[in-house]
């Protein structure tokens, strides 16, 4: 089991409200990702769930039992920290065994579990080393090993990959996803990287300034962002958001269209513009196009070998059925609102 319900959870540091009343349901076995810009309160929320911070108000219910005032150890959750937080004076074996030793488990069972975890995480060759003698990726694995041996109700991850280099990050992302497939244990994962959120989550919780902006599956957030913040935050590169006359054509205060939903032509189209920068990634090319319809360059995805260069004139046409419309409060308007212009 690993069901976590937050009811009107509130957190203030002194006079500063970090998390205003927040409700959230995390179901058993789900992979939930908290995503949002730096400083929006993701870590604080995770630490409230872990019990490392006390709530100012509200209730935290784990598996139907009120856990609001339980100390961290009594909640049955395991956490993987951004800094890994390994015990520097203990070997890998001792690090992984520590929670089991604290639980008073017998030696034979501890050895069995540690050996198994070390094997599945490819740590058997390093088992007697100290954390200081390991690479970043290996330390990360030890931290995960220390979390899984306890067989917790849920795993909490706080930006576990942000200290790794890009290539390793992709690999570890997959490993964590596989771990979830295998264990089917609830995972709550914090990141500021929307790519991690999109690739790993069953359910994404988008946070801004301690408020939940939207909860949904990656696809839901991509296809139906509830407001301009989510629209701009989810998806890479970012959605183009235009106000003024262009939006008015669609009876909206803001209209949005993703770079991959714009048709590109060298001869005709809705918006004329000049290519400022073109980024060739091989499979794709992203163009940054300056156009009079918007004061910032528009981002457009072109095919991998689209033959344009900086300075070329291009025409852009948003795909009608992929247009997002938002009202003057930034909230999404249902329907596609045909262009009137």
């Amino acid at each position, binding site marked *: 089991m690993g069901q976590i319900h937050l009811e009107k959870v509130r957190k203030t540091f002194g006079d500063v409200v970090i998390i205003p009343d927040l409700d959230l349901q995390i179901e058993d076995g789900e992979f939930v990702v908290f995503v949002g810009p730096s400083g929006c309160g993701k870590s604080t929320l995770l630490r409230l769930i872990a019990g490392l911070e006390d709530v100012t108000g509200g209730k935290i219910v784990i598996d139907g039992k009120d856990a609001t005032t339980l100390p961290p150890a009594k909640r049955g959750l395991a956490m993987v920290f951004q800094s890994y937080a*390994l*015990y*520097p004076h203990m070997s890998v074996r001792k690090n992984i065994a520590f929670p089991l030793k604290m*639980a008073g488990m017998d030696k034979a069972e501890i050895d069995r579990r540690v050996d198994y975890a070390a094997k599945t995480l490819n740590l058997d060759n390093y088992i007697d080393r100290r954390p200081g003698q390991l690479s970043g990726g290996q330390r990360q694995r030890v931290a995960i090993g220390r979390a899984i041996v306890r067989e917790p109700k849920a795993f909490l991850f706080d930006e576990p990959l942000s200290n790794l280099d890009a290539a390793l990050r992709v690999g570890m992302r997959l490993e964590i996803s596989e771990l979830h497939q295998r264990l089917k244990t609830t995972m709550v994962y914090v990141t500021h990287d929307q790519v991690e959120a999109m690739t790993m989550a069953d359910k994404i919780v988008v946070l801004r300034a301690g408020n939940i902006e939207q909860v949904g599956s990656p696809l839901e957030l991509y296809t139906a962002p509830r407001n301009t913040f989510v629209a701009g935050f989810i998806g890479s590169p970012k959605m183009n958001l235009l106000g003024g006359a262009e939006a008015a054509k669609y009876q909206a205060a803001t209209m949005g269209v993703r770079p991959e939903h714009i048709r590109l032509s060298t001869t005709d189209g809705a918006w004329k513009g000049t290519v400022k920068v073109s980024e060739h990634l091989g499979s794709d090319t992203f163009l940054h196009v300056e156009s009079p319809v918007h004061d910032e360059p528009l981002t457009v995805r072109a095919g991998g070998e689209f033959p344009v260069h900086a300075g070329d004139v291009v025409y852009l046409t948003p795909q009608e059925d992929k247009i997002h419309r938002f009202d003057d409060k930034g909230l999404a308007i249902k329907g596609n609102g045909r262009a009137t212009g």
Partner: protein
Amino acid sequence: MARNVSTGRKIGTTALAWFVGLVIFFPILWTFLTSFKTELQAISIPPVFVGFDWTLENYQTIQTQSNYFHFMANSIYLSLGSTALGLIVAVPAAWAMAFSPTKRTKDILLWMLSTKMLPAVGVLIPVYLMFIKFGLLDSRLGLIVVLFLINLPIIVWMLYTYFKEIPGEILEAARMDGASLRKEITQVLAPMAVPGIASTVLLNVILSWNEAFWTLNLTTSNAAPLTAFIASFSSPQGNFYAKLSAASMLAIAPILIVGWFSQKQLVRGLTFGAVK
């Protein structure tokens, strides 16, 4: 780190390092050599370097003139006593400052350190008068308290920087892993804090051992440590450089030996636990 450094450059920096080391070490070497000379050779011009008649005479004379072990015992009492007292106060203080800092923590630390900028002689009279009033003049207890107080800012500051290095997340990890407060302290905190505490103890013992202003001004004989022992040989009766040197060597020998053997521990204390 594999930088290509030309051999010429390596020789140059090595020579420079040796030169600087020798310049710093030279006074001690000279004192050492002088302590084995006769008084005449000690002041001869041009000075003799090693080509003199080595003699243990100075060391013998010193032993008969004053009781070295009495002074040494006092030095040990004072440095260990003030260090122990310092730890009792500074460990909890630095602990609180490092792990639950407030807005004022930095200010308090700076204020504590700023007391070290006050010239000691500025408070000599009040302290002296207090010592008379409480009958503490020439007592070990009084000196232990004074040495403890003058070194306290440094101990607190040093421990604070060590404790600050211990990442809070590791303690939180221990809490998540189900460690009780006692286990958290004995199995996680202590092993990480001990090297820092050891270095602090060492430095404080050395500082107390060498402290001369207060030990000379507040003692006469009963509580006088090795600093007073040295001073007693630089008397107005004349220049006894050889004996003065021998006294100095005897005074610094214990701390030199301690420092030499704990070198490794000191360096380890400064690098241990650096897991980022």
